[in-house]
């Protein structure tokens, strides 16, 4: 009789601190942000905010820039995650087979993941600078281009450039996760497939991918959420410019706070982002079937 009670006590003892943190750092701000989105909460009304109903949402939905930011967000997420995944997968496959110096090589590959996104944005904004950036200098010296490319200041190049930076940054995440999953595949299964005459492509599509599918699905789900909520690189390079060409929803939200000091409108944008991500998660889970996600 005593055992279950002790187990329950142990359970609460271990779970309670985490639960408290989640309540304090996630649940409370979410609820507070949701409530705030229906108030007029700006720098001028800090101490006496009043209820304004759907006014903030109406202001957002009647703002042309919001739709541009929404479209940019889709391009940003799709472009970043697709290339991060493909290149990360490729890298994991390359590192799967043991070779001399693999540890050092893996360390170098994972290096970008250790740097803060904003710092990456700043460093790359100098590398890609259209007037005296290193990348342009190399391209000019190698006669690949005649004039410098305005990577971050030409609206036709800007989104491509920030996605490029994000891909460079995000590859290690997929590489780490997929490599870990690959290492869990029993060598005997691969060897057996080889003996049965399966070529590399067949082994990849019939054994490797099905085996690590749960990891792929869960990392893709997580990554889409993270990339959508990741304004650091864009803020460090273009701040959403030029003329809104790289303005994604989180940057739109930050600018609402930093320029307009309108916290309730920013909160309403946050609620919209949350809604989009919830809808995405539900659809994704339905399409991929939730069971697949159980690791």
């Amino acid at each position, binding site marked *: 009789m005593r055992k279950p009670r002790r187990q329950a006590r142990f359970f609460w003892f271990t779970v309670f601190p985490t639960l408290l943190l989640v309540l304090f750092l996630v649940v409370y701000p979410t609820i507070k942000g949701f409530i705030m989105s229906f108030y007029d909460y700006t720098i001028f009304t800090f101490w006496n905010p009043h209820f304004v109903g759907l006014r903030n949402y109406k202001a957002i939905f009647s703002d042309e820039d919001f739709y541009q930011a929404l479209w940019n967000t889709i391009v940003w997420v799709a472009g970043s995650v697709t290339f991060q995944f493909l290149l990360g997968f490729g890298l994991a496959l390359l590192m799967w087979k043991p070779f001399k110096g693999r540890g050092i090589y893996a360390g170098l590959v994972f290096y970008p993941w250790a740097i803060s996104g904003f710092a990456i944005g700043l460093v790359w904004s100098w590398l890609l600078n259209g007037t005296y950036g290193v990348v342009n200098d190399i391209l000019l010296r190698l006669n690949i281009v005649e004039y410098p490319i*305005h990577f971050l200041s030409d609206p036709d190049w800007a989104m491509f450039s920030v996605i490029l930076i994000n891909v460079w940054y995000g590859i290690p995440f997929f590489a780490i996760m997929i490599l870990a999953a690959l290492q869990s595949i029993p060598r005997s299964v691969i060897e057996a497939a080889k003996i049965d005459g399966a070529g590399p492509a067949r082994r990849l599509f019939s054994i490797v991918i099905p085996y690590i599918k749960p990891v792929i699905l869960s990392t893709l789900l997580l990554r889409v959420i993270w990339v959508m909520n990741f304004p650091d690189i864009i803020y460090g390079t273009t701040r959403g410019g030029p*003329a809104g060409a790289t303005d994604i929803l989180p940057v739109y939200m930050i*600018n609402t706070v*930093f*320029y307009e*000091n309108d916290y309730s409108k920013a909160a309403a944008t946050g609620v919209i982002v949350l809604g989009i991500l919830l809808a995405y998660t539900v659809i994704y889970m339905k399409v991929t079937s939730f069971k697949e996600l159980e690791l």
Partner: protein
Amino acid sequence: MRKSLVVAFLLAFVFFAFAETVLNMVEVFTWPERTKVLKDIIKKFEAEHSGVKINLISPPYETAYQKVYTMISTKQPLDIVEVGDWSLSSLAAMGGLENLEPYIKNWDSVKNFLPGLLDAARTYKNTAYLIPNAVYVKTLYIRSDVLAKYGIKEAPKTMLEMYGMARYITDPRKGQYGFNFRGKGFPTDFIDLVVTSFFDDIDPNNMYLTKDGKIIWSDPRAKLGLELYVRLFKDTAPKDAINWGFSEQVNSFSSGIAPILFQDPDTLGILRSNLPDSAFKTAPLPVGPSGKAYPHFGFSGFGIVSYSKHKDLAWEFIKFFHRPDNLAYWCKNYGVLPPDKTLYYNDPFFSSEKYTGWKYMFNHPEKYQFTKQPIWNKNWGKWNELQEKTMQKVLLGKMSVDEVLKEWTKFWEEAGLK
């Protein structure tokens, strides 16, 4: 028993002997060298005021205001707050700042302030909520060595002369451009300086109104000014400059890529460490076709938090900071214009050649009429975002000058520009 009583007594003695008043202070323009200078002055204050300790909070510049707003809105312990001109109204309106007029009334040094500066600082309800500790006025910086290579010896005196000069030296194949353009990160001052120079009747109390109360953006002269601004970008600046903020501007000036720059005095400190003294100089801002230019006083300063428990001590610090020796140390090392006019005569540093641009402007009010941007308006923050974004659209050819002026006029009509 006796032993423990002695220990308790000693502990109590130590506690009371070392109990000190702590003033919490937050700075917003955080920059390592600047913070060091501020800390030096704080140390000096602490040395002269035993039992007082100042706890300086230095949040990163980018997020500093949000930190200040959060601290004040949640009434965290804070006594002295640094505020920049653009945020002064917001903080005063939210009730976070103490009215400093009663303190100023009994303060002798106030008579030494640059004429008009304290009035400019009375942004909200015509009341002083801060005492300016640094003055920012844009002036013209030129790379005299770079211009000399093209046979140019004098700084341009008019906006059109500046355009011609910048265009003359621009040669993208050589990586040489003229005007040091600001595309992002609050380009407001740059646009405003060029456009208003086409006017001769700007309201001294509101840069966006003419003396007869008309919004400048709806005036045909604004179109001419903005067209020149667009030409400066298209003909004399690299395309990349649409993405240039402060760092890029300083960098391209230091490297000589864009040798004609409008900037504040704090740039002087950075340039001095990057360039030899002979490589650059300052000159008064070029005037427009009206024969005038309309600079404005930008400023930052210290205010006292309205719920502070140590208001008098906080005022003591502000007074101490404005003592000529401390103020001179601050302005020299941080590279800003002193708010105290006596320093311009008494300190040889501020009468050096590098201050020519500002001195000329201060001494020629017939040409340089100081005015005020409507930073007290609730929509000022929104305006900066709109102006930056729409200006970029114009520069990229996605919007016409007429369209943007119409939008700006509408914005200020709705914002109640007064």
